[in-house]
């Protein structure tokens, strides 16, 4: 009886967005009286960090500090249309829509500044700290708060912009089946190192190495969190989680958190992650979607590592001690 170590890997190509009804999302941006830019969306942030990255996109295009952006996702009945946050599409679709809206709003912002400063809008630039200034003559400038006040109460203009991302639905070529259903694909690979106890059948994930090609990491901290949190979730699917009972009777099924098993802090492997950036032409600043894919590759990687460790090829999740032991018994004719 021994602990057997094994290593396995698996790779995933994951599409960003889907091919249903054009998969559109819209964004509206307007400036308040004091120069806060409100990004109105129906796209919901349920913790994935969408508000963070779309605020970054808006700030980058407008040339204003991040703190000047307020993302409002209040109401899907009254907000601009969004298909939803699924298919790893949020950052890509909504980011693009926000960039388009912010580009239009920036044009108005510069036109208002041009009238206030009595210069040509083409000679203006943003300094990133809240001022619009004349290129080469930076002392001639106006702060976004004064600019917004002038637009509202003097010039009578709205500083606003409209944005939409729409990739037309793509039908397959009848002769070849060829089609273009997504906007780009992210790529990833997980290497898992596991220890299999051949007496108890318990599998422990020791280390996971994650390599992700994601276009551009708009926010490296949230990317790292998504990659490693997703790897944990993949490991959880692989080894623990099942809503169906392991045994035929429903009474053996998990009914609450004490029976629905998932790894907690004591079960986590050491993780090493590498992010590769090859910007996608269609992505906002080159970003691809990496929502769902992060939980994909860890599962087959762990299955392959178990096979490498003890020769048991498991094809049904979760890879429970019982299944490992039955596999070992089958190998030895026991």
């Amino acid at each position: 009886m021994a602990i057997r170590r094994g290593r396995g890997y698996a790779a995933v190509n994951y599409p960003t967005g889907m091919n249903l009804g054009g998969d559109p999302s819209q964004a509206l941006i307007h400036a308040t009286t004091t120069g806060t830019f409100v990004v109105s969306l129906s796209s919901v942030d349920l913790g994935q960090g969408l508000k963070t990255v779309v605020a970054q996109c808006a700030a980058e295009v407008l040339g204003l500090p991040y703190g000047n952006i307020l993302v409002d996702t209040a109401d899907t009945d009254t907000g601009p249309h969004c298909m939803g946050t699924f298919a790893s599409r949020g950052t890509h679709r909504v980011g693009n829509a926000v960039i388009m809206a912010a580009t239009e709003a920036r044009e108005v912002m510069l036109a208002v500044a041009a009238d206030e400063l009595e210069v040509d809008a083409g000679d203006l630039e943003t300094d990133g700290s809240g001022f619009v200034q004349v290129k080469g003559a930076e002392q001639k400038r106006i702060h976004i708060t004064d600019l917004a006040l002038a637009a509202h109460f003097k010039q009578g203009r709205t500083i606003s912009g409209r944005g939409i991302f729409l990739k037309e639905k793509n039908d397959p070529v009848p002769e070849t089946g060829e089609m273009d259903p997504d906007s780009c694909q992210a790529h990833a690979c997980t290497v898992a190192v596991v220890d299999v106890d051949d007496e108890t059948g318990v599998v422990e994930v020791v280390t996971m190495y994650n390599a992700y090609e994601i276009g551009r990491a708009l926010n490296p901290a949230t990317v790292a969190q998504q990659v490693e949190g997703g790897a944990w979730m993949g490991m959880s699917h692989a080894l623990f989680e099942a809503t169906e009972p392991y045994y035929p009777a429903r009474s053996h099924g998990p009914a609450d958190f004490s029976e629905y098993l998932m790894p907690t802090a004591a079960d986590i492997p050491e993780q090493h992650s590498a992010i590769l950036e090859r910007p996608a032409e269609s992505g906002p600043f080159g970003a691809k979607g990496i929502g769902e894919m992060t939980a994909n590759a860890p599962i087959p990687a762990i299955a392959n590592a178990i096979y490498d460790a003890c020769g048991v090829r498991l094809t049904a999740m979760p890879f429970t001690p019982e299944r490992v032991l039955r596999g070992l018994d089958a190998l030895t004719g026991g």
Partner: protein
Amino acid sequence: MASTVVSLRLNGRPAEFLARPGTSLLSSLRDSLGLMAAKRGCAQGGCGTCTVLLDGRPVMSCLVAVETIEGASVRTLEGVAADDGRLDAVQSAFLDGFATQCGFCTAGMIMVAESLLAGNPDPSRDEVVEAISGNVCRCTGYASIIAAILDAARRKREVDVV
């Protein structure tokens, strides 16, 4: 049965409210007192996100019948930062170490860490893991949370030395 008046010390101040029999501490905090940091995750003691400190000990507030703790001292996440809003060492370490994603588990994680570090200023990694073993996080994979609590311990020790 009639409701009873419950008196507590809540985040250092007296609090008094009406509770129906069997009302949980969590429901009292959220529904009667308007303190929304402690979350209602599973409402059966399985997820830890409702954790608060009861006389200094971490408890799952969904499992505590509030009429049984008359006169006790309760501390929630709302009472962790200084009165001027300055974050304490645990909160700062969570923020700087990005030990959160959706935020639903964060209040419970921080309260458990507060309790751990109050009794053990220099915990090992295993002791941190044991302390948060009753708290479920679905986003982070836990590593950043463990690192943040160890970082908070370092920060607190440095402050104490100064």
